[in-house]
């Protein structure tokens, strides 16, 4: 007789940190208190390029409560070398050095920090700082600078450049009876997490500091601080237990961290620097993108050629790069492919990774072009895709660890009712509104990174698992708790997960959708080690019931170790520890991707997104009324938090399709809609019912858990699906996102 154990993994579970968050008990970086805490307020520059000729601080210094005003002229010594300012995510180039000298490199650059006893004094004084500048000509318009775009000479780490061309794309295109060739554009966007960036630096005395930072990886902030300020690693502890959304803008240490640490070390006091919503528009952003795509096919619908080139902006000082075009070589089988990616220098800050960096931009282009091709061929857009399905990764010539994209397409289509679609544009109506159905596929990497974890079991039968990674709201606390609880057969209440602290086992930054696979595997392995240790101890007990059993013969359930075949043969974990006279057992483990698998296989997550829109053509009003997203992402640890991740991603994609746009005034070189009243993200009314389907996908190669990550795939195909639906509704192809009223009316 054997018992089946109901596992936490695979079951919907509530967030373990949910209560802390809704009651306000979860403290964010800008909320941590400290005795004698000082407050810093950043003075932002207003020109895009030039020189500071002088800063008058007298009036500001006279404000009661002001302690010091830091500018480039009086700042403490910091290293000059670029290397010291690098971080784990930095692209090639020279990172921005706050208050370094009199150069203005972009609009909104921090030019002074006012430190005062209270926030109000700092803010008031900041408004009195008078910065004199000498402006120089700047350029921020990618359209005008596209001819200056270049192939980045140095590749950004972790970002695959486009693959070598395959076949002869130009010739094959010329020979294709049916061709589509167009430009597809996406506006710049800002991440706009709910929680603005903040750092609270606690002066611990003797040169030691504890830093609460808004960051997606505490190690990144710690290494940055130690390098820039020349501090020994042991003197700097960085904590980031809760992150109020980040979407990539928390990957790199931002200038408020530099400023807060600088001030704390100089004044030997605790200091907090918190940015305003407006200042959240003064660093990284998703770069505006110009895609040129050409696809050609035979009358049977077989793709003959794909050409996809993308141009993005970067700053003067760094060569930011993301993967925009490679997806076109991954989604479809095609013998003739040419992919190209270039960047152009602008007088802005360096762009930053934003949820699925690059992917929704390139996928919008290729999935729009494929949609256009389907109309040119008079074939169903879904069938066209399946007809050109790629069974292997043709960019790298490798099989996938798993790829259930076909199943995602079929299941999504069934659920959506795709077969009832009238093929002709403008053929579906509901009263005055035109109805359109569109679809697109999505793809994102399923990565894993080296990751450590610790598992500690106490005599009371409580388990703690810990690692340094961050939970940016994705549900990491919860899934790690599930994995750990299953391992030792405990209730979730008996498990505590600790994250976001440099005192904990090392983790990479939280990003790229690799955390579930990486942190999950590390926790799993550490718990596995703990099981082994417990089992050995149990076997060694006098008159042990398990004396003759091997590890495979036992299972962990309800705080006990029992024989699978006879659960009455059992011993409690507490008893094992008591007998061994241990008050705790602690195990460490590191998980790393299997190099051989990585060499032989490609790992990707996939999705098929189906959208329904209703369009009032006369007034240019689009309503998205239904979205089905079928996702193939390996094993789903927690269907509840997983669904939330996909819904969040789809809403992001909807925003990209219809709303989000950071507007640059090129005369001023300045983003102008720097608040949430004028930077539009979808409101509740814009978000329809979103059906999420998780397609069964068994993956025994990607990582020990068989998970693929979910943080990013939700956004990838969504914008394209909505744009395709708008075409189907109206017969108007809008190739520039966001699709606002003015674009639909013209």
């Amino acid at each position, binding site marked *: 007789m054997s018992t089946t154990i109901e596992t936490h993994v695979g079951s919907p579970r509530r967030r373990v940190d949910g209560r802390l968050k809704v009651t306000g008990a979860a403290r964010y970086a800008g909320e941590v208190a400290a005795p004698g805490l000082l407050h810093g307020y950043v003075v*932002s520059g207003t020109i895009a390029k030039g020189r500071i000729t002088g800063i008058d601080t007298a009036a500001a210094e006279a404000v009661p409560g002001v302690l010091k005003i830091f500018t480039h002229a009086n700042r403490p010594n910091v290293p000059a070398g670029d290397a010291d300012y690098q971080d784990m995510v930095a692209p090639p180039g020279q990172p921005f050095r706050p208050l370094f000298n009199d150069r203005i490199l972009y609009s909104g650059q921090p030019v002074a920090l006012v430190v005062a006893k209270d926030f109000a004094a700092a803010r008031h004084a900041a*408004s009195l700082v008078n910065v004199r500048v000498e402006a120089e000509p700047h350029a921020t318009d990618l359209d005008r600078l596209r001819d200056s775009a270049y192939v980045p000479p140095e590749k950004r780490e972790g970002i695959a450049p486009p693959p070598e061309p395959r076949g002869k794309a130009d010739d094959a295109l010329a020979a294709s009876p049916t061709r589509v060739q167009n430009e597809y554009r996406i506006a710049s966007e800002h991440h706009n997490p709910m929680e603005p960036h903040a750092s609270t630096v606690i002066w611990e005395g003797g040169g030691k500091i504890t830093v609460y930072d808004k960051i997606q990886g505490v190690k990144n902030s710690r290494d940055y601080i130690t390098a820039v300020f020349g501090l020994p690693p042991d003197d700097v502890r960085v904590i980031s237990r809760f992150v109020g959304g980040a979407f990539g803008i928390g990957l790199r240490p931002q200038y408020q961290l530099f400023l807060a640490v600088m001030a704390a070390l100089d004044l030997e006091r605790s200091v907090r620097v918190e940015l305003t919503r407006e200042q959240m528009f003064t660093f990284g952003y998703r770069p505006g993108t110009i895609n040129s795509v050409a696809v050609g096919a035979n009358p049977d619908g077989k793709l003959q050629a794909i050409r996809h080139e993308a141009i993005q902006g970067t700053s003067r000082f760094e060569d930011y790069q993301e993967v925009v075009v490679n997806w076109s070589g991954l989604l479809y089988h095609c013998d003739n492919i040419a992919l190209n990616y270039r960047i152009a220098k602008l007088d802005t800050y360096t762009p930053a990774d934003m949820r699925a960096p690059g992917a929704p931009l390139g996928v919008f282009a290729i999935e729009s072009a494929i949609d256009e091709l389907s109309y040119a061929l008079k074939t169903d857009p879904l069938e066209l895709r399946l007809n050109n399905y790629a069974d292997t990764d043709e960019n790298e010539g490798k099989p996938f660890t798993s790829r259930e994209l076909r199943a995602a397409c079929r299941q999504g289509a069934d659920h959506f009712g795709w077969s009832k679609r009238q093929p002709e544009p403008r053929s579906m109506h509901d009263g005055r*509104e035109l109805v359109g159905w569109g679809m697109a596929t999505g793809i994102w990497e399923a990565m894993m990174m080296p990751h450590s974890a610790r598992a500690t079991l106490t005599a009371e039968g409580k388990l703690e698992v810990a690692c340094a990674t961050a939970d940016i709201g994705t549900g990491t606390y919860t899934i790690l708790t599930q994995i750990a609880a299953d391992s030792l057969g405990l209730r979730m209440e008996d498990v505590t997960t600790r994250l976001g602290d440099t005192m904990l086992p090392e983790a990479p930054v939280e990003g790229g959708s690799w955390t579930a696979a990486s942190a999950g595997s590390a926790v799993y392995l550490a718990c596995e080690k703990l099981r082994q240790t417990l089992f050995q101890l149990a076997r060694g007990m006098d008159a042990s019931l398990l004396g003759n059993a091997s590890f495979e013969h036992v299972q962990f359930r309800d705080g006990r170790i029992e024989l699978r075949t006879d659960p009455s043969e059992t011993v409690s974990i507490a008893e094992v520890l008591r007998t061994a006279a241990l008050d705790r057992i602690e195990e460490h483990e590191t998980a790393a991707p299997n190099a051989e698998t990585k060499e032989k296989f490609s790992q990707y997550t996939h999705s098929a997104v189906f959208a329904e829109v209703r369009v009032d053509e006369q*007034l240019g009003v689009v*309503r998205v009324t239904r979205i089905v997203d079928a996702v193939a992402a390996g094993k789903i640890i927690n269907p509840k938090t997983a669904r939330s991740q996909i819904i969040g991603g789809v809403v992001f994609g909807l925003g990209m399709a219809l709303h989000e746009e950071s507007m640059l005034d090129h005369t001023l070189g*300045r983003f102008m809609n720097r608040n949430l009243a004028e930077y539009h993200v979808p409101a509740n009314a814009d978000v329809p019912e979103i059906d999420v389907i998780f397609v069964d996908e068994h993956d025994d190669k990607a990582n020990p858990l068989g998970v693929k990550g979910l943080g990013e795939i939700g956004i990838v195909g969504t914008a394209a699906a909505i744009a395709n639906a708008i075409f189907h509704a109206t017969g108007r192809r809008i190739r520039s996102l966001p699709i606002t009223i003015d674009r639909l009316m013209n």
Partner: protein
Amino acid sequence: MNRFSYARPNDLAEAVQVATAESRFIAGGTNLIDLIKYNVERPARLIDITRVPGLDRIEPAPGGGLRIGALVTNSTVAYDDRVTASYPLLASAILAGASPQLRNAATTGGNLLQRTRCYYFYDSGTACNKREPGSGCPAIGGLNRIHAILGTSEDCIATHPSDMCVALAALAATVHVTGPIGDRVIPFADFHRLPGDRPDRDTTLEKGEIVTAVELPPEDFSAHYTYLKLRDRLSYAFALVSVAAALDLDGDTIRTARIALGGVAHKPWRIPAAEDFLSGQPATAESFARAADTLLSGAQGFGHNTFKIGLARQAIVRALQQAAAGTPQSQIDKRIR
């Protein structure tokens, strides 16, 4: 944000008395606080009028109609039985604006005096004639997607962002004020100004004057009205173009028409000639299109906002159709009728 002192007068007389050129009245604070944070407003003193008695009531007006105190919140007006029964156009316009949280805080007086949403006006790091007279207008030739197409000047092309005021204009409300020069009643059409060469002045209110009430005349247009708002998302965005339309019909013939536009000018845009033209006309798309032409005559785009001219034309026709059919736009259902 600068440092300021704070006063909380106990009655109107005291409020008027403590006001200076450097002070600001604060009601719901939903606009003023933001402006102070952005250093656009730097008041030396905030005069909190929320405890001034007598301004928080909706009551019958002496000659019929309804009088709405300056401190009545936008939510209270929108859900007041007398308003929803007699002036559903006003309720609808209010519900088309902002969010429930904001409407709960925002007041009638504050809504009238809320300032433009021009990006440059909010950014003290740029020039702006409205914020700093004489400094220039970067919106002309800059980002002007949300800007005015009517009644602009070479000094300013900002719009007045309110929805409520568009309905009040159509309903021909009056604004009651008091101040150093005594009590005044200002017709709604004269309350907000066009920018001209003084874009720093949004209204005809004199320094130190305080709005005490808005009065609605008896004529209510409750049978044939609509408030149609077009914006960058389905809810919670300022109007690109909005139309308050009210009709009095005799069968299919228009007896009286009222049309006011939002999002297109420095004030709610009303052209009596367009309304006069409609009276006696059949309630058809053709008549409505001709009225639209009159309303929009002289409209001028600045590049990004040129689309508003065509959009406004379509919106006017649709709104008048909705009003004539007795099928006003619902502010809950985002489907446009």
